């Protein structure tokens, strides 16, 4: 209230209103004298919320110092800051543990401002305090459960990694030796036995591939945030991937072109895996008799500092009800005439999400698909 009316009765009314507001406030309000040295600053006023919070009555508090609220767990360093801030005439804001009259602890968040006279000199301190014990405890509980979840998740990941790693060897032994037996002794088996044995070989290879892919999946997003990441040229990475895909490109007559390509903040290996998965899917799920046409470009995303890639194809497309499902581990929409275990999109999603970004698809069956993903980066001016 900077302009108090000259009319004495209006001034009275305003005072009454302010008093009522202070008395009914939920936050504790304390006014003290300016002197900081002990026994100061003496308390001159407390509101009812102060009593509710501290259990000290108005009579017990007046004339005492707010230090009566402090105890062994009160943050002494913070009190040092408080003193420094007040001496330099600054506003103070902090949080610490204080003690009620009965010795019980509570967490208080408080701010202190100087009250100034007309000449601009500080004449009193005004402290507003709030008991935030419940909030702080809830935050602590949330943090603890977050940490616990993270630990459990890490253990689980480690378990999957170790399990898939250790399974590789026995599965390879079965796969290799069953093929060996098939080579050498096939003629000794009746036709039905040969058929059974072909299933054994097929099964062993398939388990082997699943385990290898699972291993790759658990490894995919490791190291994503461990070291600072530099900008890399996404066009270069794309070119490497296209070169790697050369056999299937020439086999299918695919044409891969690119528009603007940004600099992105990502590990090269991760971007390579994403392109590799999206492009090989675009080639694999082509329409019969239609050579794949794939176009990759990027644009600035709504989020500042973020770019959005789009990988567009003219393939068979994906029905809307599967747009989420395709990102699941070992999810496949098609029969075995399409190779693969169904891990590629799961790996892609895992990598993208570990960077805190998103991947999604827009597609109409028969009319191709466009896979989008976002990443931290910038469109180059020379692009």
């Amino acid at each position, binding site marked *: 209230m900077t302009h108090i009316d000259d009319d004495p009765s209006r001034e009275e009314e305003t005072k009454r209103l302010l008093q009522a507001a202070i008395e009914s406030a939920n936050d504790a309000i304390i006014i003290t004298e300016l002197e900081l040295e002990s026994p100061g600053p003496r308390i001159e006023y407390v509101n009812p919320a102060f009593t509710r919070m501290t259990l000290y009555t108005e009579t017990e508090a007046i004339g005492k110092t707010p230090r009566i609220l402090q105890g062994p767990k009160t943050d002494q360093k913070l009190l040092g800051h408080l003193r420094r801030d007040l001496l330099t005439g600054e506003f103070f804001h902090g949080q610490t543990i204080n003690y009620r009259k009965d010795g019980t602890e509570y967490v208080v968040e408080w701010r202190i401002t100087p009250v100034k006279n007309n000449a601009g000199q500080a004449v009193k301190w005004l402290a507003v305090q709030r008991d935030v014990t419940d909030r702080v405890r809830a935050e602590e509980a949330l943090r603890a459960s977050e940490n616990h979840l993270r630990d459990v998740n890490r253990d689980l990941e480690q378990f999957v990694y170790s399990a898939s*790693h250790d399974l*590789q*060897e026995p*599965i*390879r*032994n079965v*796969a*290799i*030796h069953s*093929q*060996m037996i098939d*080579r050498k002794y096939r003629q000794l088996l009746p036709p039905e036995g040969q058929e059974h044995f072909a299933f054994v070989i097929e099964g*062993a*290879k398939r388990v*082997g*591939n699943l385990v*290898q892919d699972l291993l*790759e999946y658990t*490894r995919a997003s490791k190291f994503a945030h461990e070291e600072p990441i530099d900008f890399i040229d996404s066009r270069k990475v794309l070119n490497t991937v296209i070169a790697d895909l050369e056999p299937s490109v020439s086999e299918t007559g695919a044409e891969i072109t690119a528009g603007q390509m940004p600099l992105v903040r990502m590990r090269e*290996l991760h971007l390579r895996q994403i392109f590799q998965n999206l492009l090989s899917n675009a080639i694999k799920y082509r329409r019969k008799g239609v050579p794949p046409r794939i176009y990759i470009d990027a644009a600035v995303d709504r989020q500042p500092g973020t770019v959005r890639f789009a990988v567009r194809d003219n393939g068979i497309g994906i029905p809307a009800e599967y747009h989420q499902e395709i990102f699941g581990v070992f999810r496949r929409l098609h029969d075995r005439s399409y190779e693969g275990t169904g891990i590629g999109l799961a790996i892609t999603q895992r990598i993208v999400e570990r960077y805190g970004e998103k991947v999604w698809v827009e597609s109409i069956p028969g009319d191709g698909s466009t896979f989008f993903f976002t990443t931290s980066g910038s469109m180059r001016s020379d692009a």
Partner: protein
Amino acid sequence: MPDMARILIVEDNPSDAWVIRTAVDQEGISAEYEVVVNGEQALQFIRQASENQERPKPTLLILDLNLPRCSGHDIMREWHTSPLSTVPIVVVTSSDSPRDREMASGYTPYYFRKPLDFDKFMAIGGLVRSVLSREVTASA
């Protein structure tokens, strides 16, 4: 190629060691093999080679990376600082991890990933042949 190759195989999976030998034999390479099954034994082999330099050196090391007691990385490091440093290494592993590939590339260009397919695994024989003939050409 030498008349008789001496190949040291460091491999804890007997099946893989067997496939490797079969593949090398099928290439018509005459070789005698020493197989050690853990990292400790491999390090001991290197120590003995350092102590007794009269002992004939192997012509090739075929090394699995994931071994009990001591990693393939440790073995390659020791190998490279021993009198055996000129003996080529072929890494044969189930690992496709970029870290393993990068680590191995510091010691050898020959990295073979163990496949699930028998014919593809047998290709290790061809790789061994080409490494052995390259080494002979290089030292000739």
